[in-house]
């Protein structure tokens, strides 16, 4: 199911300003936020993250954005790291990095929103210890209420699985000590893309 369209009057007039707020807020919940001018820039950033993680196995949930960013994987066929785009129920559990695209971002809380009806999008964002999330810069809304209004405006079009993600997985269940990375990823990288589909401030 497609993400809701941002109506003109709800679309942020200044994605740049919203991006700054988002970056601050997401940083407060331990997400790492970066921004690329276009797909090429974004692909480079993804590769850096994958290399840094020392990943042998990367799982990407198929989407037009992800497909266009990494058409040929990370290098020569058969060499590390291997990019998996299919059969992810089998491959995501031992992948070191998962990659998926998001529909919206909420500046107020540093939150990503995704129609996660497609199982793959959930597998790559829950199982690997590192998750890379991609989102077009022009899809930042100011508040949680704005995001909920977009989905609530079309109740029949609500996706079966709508996911909101703010930072990596966390717990404070032992002695209230904040510990990052329990069942979900311990690292969340968010890359905003200005280019095609994106918009510069």
């Amino acid at each position, binding site marked *: 199911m497609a993400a809701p369209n941002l109506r003109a009057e709800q679309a942020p007039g200044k994605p740049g300003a919203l991006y700054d707020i988002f970056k601050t*807020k997401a940083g407060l*919940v331990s997400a790492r936020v970066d921004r690329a001018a276009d797909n090429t820039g974004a692909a480079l950033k993804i590769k850096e993250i994958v290399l840094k993680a020392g990943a042998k196995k990367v799982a990407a949930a198929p989407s037009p954005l992800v497909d266009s960013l990494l058409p040929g994987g990370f290098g020569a066929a058969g060499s590390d790291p291997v990019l998996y785009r299919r*059969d*992810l*129920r*089998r491959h995501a*559990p031992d992948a070191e990095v998962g990659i998926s695209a998001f529909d919206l971002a909420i500046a*107020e*809380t540093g*939150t990503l929103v995704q129609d*996660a*009806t*497609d*199982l793959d999008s*959930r*597998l790559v*964002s*829950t*199982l690997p210890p590192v998750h890379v999330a991609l989102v077009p810069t022009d899809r930042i809304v100011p508040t*949680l*209420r704005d995001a*909920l*209004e977009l*989905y*609530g405006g079309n*109740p029949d079009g*609500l*996706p*079966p*699985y*709508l*996911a*909101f*993600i*703010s*930072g*990596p*997985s*966390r*717990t*404070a*269940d*032992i*002695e*209230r*000590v904040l*510990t990052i*990375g*329990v*069942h*979900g*990823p311990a690292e969340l990288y968010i890359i905003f893309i200005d280019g095609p589909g994106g918009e510069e401030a």
Partner: protein
Amino acid sequence: MSGGSIKGDIRAALANENLRGALGRFADDYLESRRVAYGHKNFSALQDEIAAIKSRAAGRLEELAGRFAIEAANRGAKVFWAETAGQARDYILNLARERGVKTIVKSKSMASEEIHLNKYLTEAGLEVVETDLGEWIIQLCGQRPSHMVLPAIHMTRGEVAGIFSRETGEELPPVISRLVQVARENLRQKFLQAGLGITGANIAVAETGTLVMVSNEGNVRLTTTLPPLHVAIVGLEKLVERFSDTAPILEALPRSATSQQLTSYVTMLTGPAPAVDAFGQPVQKEMHIILLDNGRTAMRGDPEFKEALQCIRCASCLNVCPVFQLVGGHVFGHVYTGGIGAILTAFFNGMENAGGIQSLCLGCGRCKEFCPAKIDLPRLINSLRTRLARQSGLPLPQRLFLKNVLTSRPLFHGLLRAAKAGQKPFVREGMVRHLPFFLAGLADVSNLPALAEEPLRDWFRSYTGGETAKHKSKRGSSPESGQESKPGSKEEGTTKNNAAEKTGDNLEGSAVFKTEIRAAKETKGKPEAGADGRAKAEAAGKAASKAEVKPEVKAGTGAGGKARPLAGLFAGCLTDFIYPEIGVSMVKVLESMGFAVVFPQGQTCCGYPARQLGAPEVMTEVARQNLAAFEAAGADYILTPCPTCTHALKDIYPEVTGDDPALQARAAAMAARVYDFAEFVYNGIKDGTTQMPGLKPLDRKVTYHDSCHLKRSLGITREPRELLKTAGADLVEMPFSDRCCGFGGSYSLKYPELSALILDQKLACIRETGAGLVAVECPGCLMQLRKGLAERGEKAVEARFLAEILADQL
């Protein structure tokens, strides 16, 4: 864990240093982190929004459940209405068996705790694995959650390391990051194997059939993603009408629960999403939603308790509760914990399990302030208390006291005087708190201040106005030494009860009452004994009334005969019989402002303690008497030094007189003239309607303690502070100035250990200011603080009543 007596459980909890440390630190940090999380959000607007949404939904549970069921079914979910816990359990077990499930993964669900699901499924041979870290810890060591949001808050990393070592067969160090990693690895295998995932839900949207779940660890996402079968257990109170209703709840829940702007994950499920099996083959995901009644429609049908359905389970009422912070949820709770836990337990898990929990509520009212759903939890607990008292009955001495003595002022005051004279008919080593409790057989603590030599009402008999300067407090105004003479001491035993003879506070009544208790005890279970006793007490009361001195001593006109505005003083028992100097100080200040003061002698206990003990009808009766007394006095204003009395006269009398419209109208008329002393004085000066002569500057470091009832029942915080500044005080705020002092009326008698620890915290806050004087505007707090200071040999700090401080500077 409450296997033994509640007192034993309290002792065990208090001995658990880790529990107290963890809970105490959490409670201290919570206020600030919550404040930061709310930032610029308008909490009170959110409260209004949530209360409106949830109360609307609570009134239409079945309708919304029906709509939800249709919408969810249209989107492919199966919806089952479980009227009882047993139906829900059976449904899940049958489903698991039909689908050949062996392993079940669960994310945190209080509803599943409520129906004791794990035990049931495990006994049926299924492997059930809690995947929330805290819940897993609790499950592995066979406990139950001690907090609704932080289930294992009572355990140390060392204990967790021990539990995980046993589970994994590997010696694990007490390093939290390592322990979390071990949980991830172990539970990951379970997620991948499980045939069924069970979750709860935080919100269920009728309009769209959507379930909303908040979590931080990611286990909800895995539980709803990996197994091909999903069961969600949803209490009916989770229903809201519209999708847009989720917004304010999602804004408040994480902020109030864990001081987060949003949890790491919010998952919204609208019908089943696609799934694949472990081999990557697409399978039809099955989604079953159990709408759980289990007492919720009964709660909805109960006008007194319907409000509890507004709860969004953020547990902030636990986090700000001074008692919870000491003992945790194993003592203060059943399945659901804390104050709200008492109410939920009564309806979901049986009244019989709620009695002990509700008794732990101190009545400080702090929870109400923080509730994002605007639930008046103190009122609910009071209603529960009343209901339990009606069902199981109050202990006999209390019942007899409330019904036969408190409703007869001469008898009541006669008994007080009797106690003063050392005759002590009903107390062992006892002294007073809220005075009625003392006589109700609840008093069991020594080292409390003695009754005053001359009650305020007697002082007033010789008072003709403008003479306050002559009054010398019989006991001075210094903090109690803790060594004060007690009733029955030699010195007091020689003090004859002249005043009682004078006023007709007939001592015979006490003899009747004493005999009656004995008689009733001997003929336990025979109601006619009580009825007979009632008649005797009434007779004694009438005899006493005849001897009542009339007319009222009224100070309505000054020397020149020019009418001054008339202020009626409603003293309350503590001021009347223990701290008359407070009343005298009030008179002094009021006179300086040009008022005449009258003390209607027919006034008696405000009745609040009776209501607190679960006997509101007794409060109605004393309300009738107090109304008559003050109507006869014709005061323009009615002032009290006691916030509990003010609250009673102003807010509760119109409530408890509801069955008698004429009486209620009179109560409302009186309520409109009732003021707290500080409020009255400050506002009069501020509005320019009255003036106080210039005060000698106090020139001293003073800190101010907010009484629970003054702040939360009456909303008065600024006025006393401003008056202190007017008196030239160097006002220094203490941390947590509005945290209860631990007095709580009968509470300090029922649970002295808890009361003492809460008092310790308060005294530590006072000390931190470096002030030598702590001002209070509540005689109960005054008593508690003075007792604490005296017992701890604290010489550098004194506790005084605001009116006394002002009067001294005149």
